[in-house]
């Protein structure tokens, strides 16, 4: 393909975009919205997945003890737990240590916890490491039935809930994205249809001059793809800016919530959004080219 021909395609595509500037804007806007929805829900999914992974891999059971147990009772419990099958390690964390640990995790904001030493609401805790993930439930059940144990928490339940949440976020996000994405495809195809009608006369002449079908179609395809690209770039920029300011913000206020912030994951996600924008654009123009451009 000659450079001049390529220039011609793009010039015609951009002329059409500016000719129907309002509709083009609407088309770009819907692409942006649909990809924003997709981008946000994907980020949520990626993060909950990551969180679930972390929880699962820790295989840790927290045993909260009743208040006011004697030292001997605690030691007895410790021994009983240690000899349960599947237990690798038992660690005792006193109320005071627990408070100190929480203080550390709050980092620069630790003053919030000042004054709690007097009336420490945190219980004494055993942290149990299990050998394998599938033993966690059994160990937790046995420990829960022991005297002096207030409550037993382990990742499993949270993990299962997270999986459910992730699933619904995924379904809802993709559902919403498909709906808005369909609207975007529709709007792009409407834009292209108007472009085709605006250039009907020219298209007729092109056919008389022996233009190949693809020569006639290409500017319209490019027009749709440019609209999709603009919309997706806008969405990618918004997702990027929004997400990283959230990451930064959360790192300051809630440092114990780990957000996925490595470039690899986020940028491949943004790249996916842009690719999808191009596909939406191409699909929209393909529909109109097919229906209204009888070449």
């Amino acid at each position: 393909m000659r450079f001049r021909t390529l220039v011609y395609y793009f010039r015609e595509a951009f002329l059409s975009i500016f000719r129907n500037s309002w509709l083009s804007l609407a088309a770009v806007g819907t692409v942006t919205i649909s990809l924003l929805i997709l981008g946000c829900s994907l980020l949520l999914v990626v993060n909950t997945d990551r969180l679930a992974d972390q929880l699962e891999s820790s295989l840790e059971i927290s045993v909260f003890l009743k208040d006011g147990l004697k030292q001997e009772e605690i030691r007895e419990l410790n021994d009983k737990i240690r000899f349960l099958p599947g237990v690798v390690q038992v660690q005792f964390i006193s109320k005071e240590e627990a408070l100190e640990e929480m203080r550390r995790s709050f980092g620069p904001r630790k003053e919030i916890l000042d004054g709690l030493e007097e009336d420490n609401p945190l219980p004494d805790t055993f942290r149990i490491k299990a050998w394998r993930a599938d033993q966690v439930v059994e160990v937790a059940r046995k420990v829960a039935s022991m005297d002096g144990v207030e409550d037993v928490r382990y990742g499993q339940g949270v993990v299962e809930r997270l999986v459910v949440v992730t699933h619904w976020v995924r379904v809802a996000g993709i559902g919403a994205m498909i709906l808005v994405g369909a609207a975007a495809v529709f709007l792009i195809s409407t834009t292209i249809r108007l472009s085709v009608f605006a250039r009907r006369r020219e298209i007729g002449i092109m056919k008389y001059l022996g233009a190949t079908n693809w020569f006639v179609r290409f500017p319209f395809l490019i027009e749709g793809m440019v609209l999709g690209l603009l919309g997706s770039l806008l969405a990618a920029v918004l997702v990027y800016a929004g997400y990283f300011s959230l990451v930064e913000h959360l790192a300051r206020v809630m440092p114990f919530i780990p957000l996925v912030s490595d470039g690899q994951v986020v940028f491949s996600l943004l790249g996916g959004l842009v690719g999808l924008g191009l596909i939406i654009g191409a699909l929209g123009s393909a529909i109109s080219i097919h229906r209204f451009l009888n070449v």
Partner: protein
Amino acid sequence: MIRFYGVTKIYPNGVKALDNVNLHIRKGEFLFLVGPSGAGKTTLTRLIFREELPTRGQVLFNGKNVARLRSREVPYLRRKIGMVFQDFRLLPQKTVFENVAFALEVTGASSREIKRRVPEVLKLVGLEGKAGVLPAQLSGGEQQRVGIARAIVNNPVLLIADEPTGNLDPETSWELMELFQKINNNGTTILMVTHARDIVDAMKKRVVALESGRIVRDEEGGGYRNEV
């Protein structure tokens, strides 16, 4: 070069536009196609151009059955044929140069080719000084010259002109006929649909007359009507 063998064209609405037409157009010929409105003249040109397909019979272009061409081959057939219209069909937002260049652009020609070829053709049709002008600023005769320039810029073997002087005054028409003659002298076959009786009578070319879809007369050096 072009042969019609028993060509009949019936449109979907039942109108029989051509009825068993046999015709042979030779290379280098200048042929007038005459006849009353609705006689099938335009249909005949459309069959050559493959805008329509014959209902029965065959149209051959350089020995190839036009109806058998695959749709992706059609543009290459059309590049061998230049079309000139009664209403010029220029693009109003493009200059004279751009209108003519468009025909080359559509075939994927290079910038260099366009810069070489367009001025050449504009000179041939006598519009050297008007390259940068918009069609609306030209007279009807000049606009048709642009149309002709666009039709011949690809060096077509056949030029089909469908009432090219239909919207023009007699004097301008004659100037255009001189141009067509010049193009014909350069070797391009010309098929001209026309109602311009005095032109046909004066030019003394081959005249094919259609009536109700049938060829009623085909004579060399003939006039618009039989009695001439």
